[in-house]
């Protein structure tokens, strides 16, 4: 069934790209087949027209190559001065990207898109500068020759014999909103060249015979035309996709690029990109690392990473896997991604190696089933790397001690052999030597082990083969023995070395994995952003021996350090902007990247979902040491974990704040309703009674008493509100002084007398109670609140007991009644504010919260100890360590 409805993914993509386009500047490229076709001229002419139409256009970089007509057409256009850069004693000039960003023109002209910046610039390539300008919303006009396009790099090299180093990723070119092809015929171009309009005349002859051969120009022109046509086609397709006419490819079949760790990687990626574009398929790139990776040298792995990076730059989705069965993994991946075509490179191997190891490519072709396999062959016969012999052990350094060990193994084998030689057959001697070789290779490196093999053969010959103590051999039958012994020795040495390397590799990998796990766990356990960042910084420093900084943005988006391990490298005025750049652009920056690679640190933006949490910066602890490339990938993995953890903490903090706000909102509402009810009702009674009195109606005594009682009640409410506000504001510092418990109880009883008039009161105050260091009036108030509660919420006649005694390091003050008790439901939030359980609404429900607040500022505690039968409220007041001495006179 054909689905003509727009694919939701595609719709989303369209929305996103439109959104991006909205604040992204527009890019127009002037594309030419070669130098001299007039790209710069065309660009400047158009700029002049725009200037006439009052468009804010400026020149960022223009290369006139001394061409008079080009210079003429640039007059009158405002120019942003280029930035001088010192490099190896020469002052070079580069696009001043910060000046352009500060100036913010609508349009800037930046010539030579493929230009490579002087080392020490912000980006390696000029197209990255342009990208940043576009990102900042500034439109750019730029010029590009066809041979500088990444995917055409190889093709152009084949045509012209010149490998161009300066390339622009196809994906970037494709992002151009408009491409204008500047086309002149090859003959015309050669004519212009001859007239000296392109290069200074002295170079003309060389150029005409070399790059500007007619055949070259025709081929390049065709490429340029085709690229421009492709671009038009793509725009057409995009238009159709936008319009939802139909899906671009019904089944969304993909082209899979398999990247092998050989030097073909780049070529395969470029070729696949071309294929993908022609068949309008999505691309995926895959690198499968064998779990026998010990055999892979760092160099090989770096090559694979380079090819993957190239693929990413071309906008191809990449994936890295580890598997034992490489072909099986490739096919499984292909099946999951609906791949219809696999592109692989086939390096030329020595035939015997292919027979020995088998070929991944052959196996892939055999097992691929109905998936097509496109094999890119290795046609460069004379690459310098091919000649190099495969290194057996790339990473072991010979140690003189190792040779001593090898020789010793050999001597010991010889000695033991001498002991058994007379009694046992020859074969045993050979075995002893092989054992010696095996031990030597286990303990030492490859070269000492090989030395041991050769020495063993020599010793065997010299000491045990007749004629003995001579190197000459009487029986030719021993020659195969020597060969086999040497061969076996070499094999043992090589295999043992490989095993060792594999073991080391897996140990190293294991260590890193566990370190990563440790970091993740440390972060998961941490609460709060600071703690997470600290945990991360500590673990990275300890486990990976890196200097770390975690930087997060302040309200103005400037990075500030949240945690760091040792140095303050993020405060380094040369490093800090690199981190800031990484944060602002959401891209990697610093050493080993394309942006500001001269920086000491490697900066990874902490991106989680759509938010950027900050930047993780790492640099080797030892100044000047290079960062291990394998650590970078690990740090990136780690950075995404850190980003998620930081975001989680941020969300937690925000939700906590929201909850607090909701709670305070609830309190505010409760307060308002309380105030409106509890203040208005006594006021109503007072006003009513007073008006009756004024009119001389009713019983004056009753009315006066009402006024008096209600005003007392009002006074109590206001006092409670004031107390609560003061206590909650946190400004109340207890006015600590030595106080007598009996006196505090007495004061409280006196003050609550009127409420407790119908309640028999008892006290249990031991005579030996020490003085307590408290704020007397506050503790008295707490007691008054408890007593008044008891008086108000229990029926008349209920006994109330105030008891004090020492319990541990506290003074325990209890107010106990034998009333009906408190229901469980009420008991659970009896200390909450505005929870008045009194049906007659005698107060704000602030009495107990005030008690709790008072005890809290004394570092004590207030609780409902028992709720039935009868309520027991307990106040725990910490006792002072050093009660004062009072001389008794």
């Amino acid at each position, binding site marked *: 069934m054909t689905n003509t409805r727009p694919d939701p993914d595609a719709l989303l993509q369209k929305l996103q790209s439109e959104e991006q386009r909205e604040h992204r500047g527009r890019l127009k490229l002037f594309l030419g087949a070669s130098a001299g076709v007039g790209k710069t001229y065309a660009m400047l002419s158009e700029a002049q027209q725009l200037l006439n139409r009052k468009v804010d256009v400026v020149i960022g970089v223009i290369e006139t190559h001394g061409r008079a007509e080009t210079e003429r057409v640039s007059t009158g256009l405002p120019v942003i001065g280029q930035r001088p850069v010192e490099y190896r004693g020469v002052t070079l000039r580069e696009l001043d990207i910060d000046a352009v960003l500060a100036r913010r023109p609508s349009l800037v002209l930046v010539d030579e898109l493929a230009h490579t910046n002087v080392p020490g610039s912000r980006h390696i390539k000029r197209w990255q500068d342009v990208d940043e300008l576009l990102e900042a919303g500034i439109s750019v006009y730029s010029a590009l020759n066809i041979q500088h396009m990444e995917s055409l790099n190889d093709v152009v090299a084949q045509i012209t014999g010149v490998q161009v180093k300066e390339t622009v990723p196809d994906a970037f070119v494709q992002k151009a909103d408009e491409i204008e092809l500047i086309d002149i015929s090859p003959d015309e171009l050669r004519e212009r060249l001859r007239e000296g309009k392109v290069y200074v005349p002295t170079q003309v002859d060389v150029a005409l015979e070399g790059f500007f051969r007619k055949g070259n120009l025709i081929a390049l022109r065709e490429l340029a035309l085709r690229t421009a046509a492709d671009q038009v086609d793509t725009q057409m397709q995009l238009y159709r996709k936008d319009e939802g006419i139909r899906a671009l490819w019904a089944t969304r079949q993909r082209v899979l690029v398999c990247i092998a760790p050989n030097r073909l990687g780049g070529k395969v990626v470029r070729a696949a990109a071309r294929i993908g574009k022609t068949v309008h398929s999505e691309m995926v790139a895959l690198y499968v690392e064998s779990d026998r990776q010990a055999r892979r040298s760092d160099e090989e792995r770096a090559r694979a990473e380079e090819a993957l990076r190239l693929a990413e730059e071309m906008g191809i989705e990449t994936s890295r896997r580890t598997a034992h069965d490489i072909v099986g993994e490739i096919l499984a991946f292909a099946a999951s991604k609906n791949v219809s075509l696999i592109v692989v490179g086939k390096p030329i191997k020595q035939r015997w190696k292919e027979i020995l190891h088998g070929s991944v490519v052959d196996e892939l072709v055999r097992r691929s089933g109905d998936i097509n396999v496109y094999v890119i062959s290795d046609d460069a016969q004379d690459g310098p790397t091919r000649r190099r012999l495969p290194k057996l052990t790339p990473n072991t350094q010979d140690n003189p001690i190792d040779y001593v060990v090898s020789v010793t193994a050999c001597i010991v084998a010889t000695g033991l052999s001498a002991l058994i030689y007379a009694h046992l057959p020859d074969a045993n001697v050979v075995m002893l030597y092989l054992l010696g070789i095996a031990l030597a290779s286990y303990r030492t490196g490859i070269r000492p082990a090989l030395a041991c093999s050769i020495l063993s053969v020599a010793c065997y010959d010299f000491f045990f083969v007749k004629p003995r103590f001579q190197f000459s051999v009487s029986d030719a039958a021993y020659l195969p023995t020597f060969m086999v012994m040497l061969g076996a020795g070499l094999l043992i040495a090589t295999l043992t070395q490989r095993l060792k390397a594999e073991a080391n590799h897996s140990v190293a990998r294991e260590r890193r994995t566990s370190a990563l796990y440790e970091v993740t766990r440390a972060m998961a356990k941490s609460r709060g952003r600071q703690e997470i960042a600290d945990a991360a910084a500590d673990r990275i420093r300890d486990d990976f021996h890196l200097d770390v900084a975690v930087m997060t943005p302040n309200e103005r988006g400037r990075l500030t350090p949240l945690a760091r391990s040792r140095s303050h490298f993020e405060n380094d005025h040369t490093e800090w902007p690199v981190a800031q750049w990484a944060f602002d652009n959401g891209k990697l920056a610093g050493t080993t990247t394309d942006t500001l690679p001269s920086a000491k640190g490697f900066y990874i933006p902490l991106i989680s979902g759509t938010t950027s949490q900050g930047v993780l910066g790492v640099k080797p602890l030892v100044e000047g040491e290079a960062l291990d490339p394998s650590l970078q990938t690990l740090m990136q993995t780690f950075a995404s974990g850190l980003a998620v953890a930081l975001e989680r903490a941020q969300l937690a903090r925000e939700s906590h704040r929201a909850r607090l706000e909701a709670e305070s909102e609830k309190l505010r509402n409760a307060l308002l309703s309380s105030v409106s009810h509890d203040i208005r009702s006594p006021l109503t009674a007072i006003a009513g009674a007073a008006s009756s009195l004024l009119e001389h109606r009713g019983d004056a005594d009753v009315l006066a008493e009402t006024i*008096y009682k209600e*005003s007392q009640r009002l*006074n109590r409410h206001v*006092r409670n509100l*004031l107390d609560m506000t003061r206590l909650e504001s946190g400004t109340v510092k207890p*006015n600590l*002084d*030595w*106080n*007598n418990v*009996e*006196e505090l*109880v*007495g*004061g409280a*009883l*006196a003050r609550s007398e009127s409420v407790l008039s119908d309640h028999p*009161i008892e*006290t249990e*105050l031991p*005579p030996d109670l020490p*003085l307590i260091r408290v704020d*007397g*009036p506050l503790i*008295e108030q707490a007691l008054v609140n408890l007593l008044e509660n008891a008086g108000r919420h229990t029926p008349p006649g209920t006994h109330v007991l*105030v008891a004090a005694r020492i319990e541990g390091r506290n003074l325990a003050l209890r107010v106990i009644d034998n009333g009906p008790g408190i229901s469980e439901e009420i008991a659970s939030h009896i200390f909450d504010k505005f929870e008045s359980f009194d049906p007659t609404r005698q107060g704000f429900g602030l009495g107990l919260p005030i008690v709790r607040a008072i005890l809290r500022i004394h570092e004590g505690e207030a609780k409902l100890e028992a709720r039935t039968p009868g309520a027991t409220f307990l106040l725990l007041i910490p006792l002072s360590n050093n009660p*004062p001495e*009072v001389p*008794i*006179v």
Partner: protein
Amino acid sequence: MSKVKLLIIEDERPIRSFIKASLRDDEFDIKEAVNAADGMALVATWNPEVVLLDLGLPDKDGLEVTQLLREWTQVPIIVISARGQEQDKIDALDAGADDYLTKPFSLGELMARVRVSLRHRQNASKPDEPVFEAGTLKIDFASRRVWKGQEEVHLTPIEYKLLSVLARNAGRVVTHKQLLHEVWGPAYTTESQYLRVYSAQLRHKIELDPARPKLITTEAGVGYRLKVD
């Protein structure tokens, strides 16, 4: 009997009118001042017998007014404080104010304070009474003997001194600082623990129920008062 000249220094009109309306015309001659400056001028020109001084005046704080008045007059000063002015109140008492009232207060409380103050003023000119009696308590100053009902109680010298200071100021609040100064001496004015211990001992000797004292009452955070009926 001549009328008592009473000056109210208070900026709140409702409070002034409540006091004026409550006190009987035949007993009191009342003048009002709405700020400290007018009030002090009236003290000098009119020579009142009792001054009610609000601590929350717009032009000067109560402590300063008390200090200025005490420079030249012994007229009884009763300060009127609101919540939140506890320290001002204590400072004013330490500076020589006779007593205090906390808003809101009843007419009964006001009258009690005024009477005690007047009595002390009258007594100031006469020699001390040799015998003091309040409720079940009886003190013979000449023989330094104390009785609780019929039973004589034996007090230590400090206890006796403490009790006699309270008795001489009977009905009036005596601040912690004043008590410490009078009983132990000027060097002890911050050693409140002395006061806590001795007041407790004293209560145990003269009160019926020391946990619910009827004679020596505590004014939380301010001081003590020996009650007279």
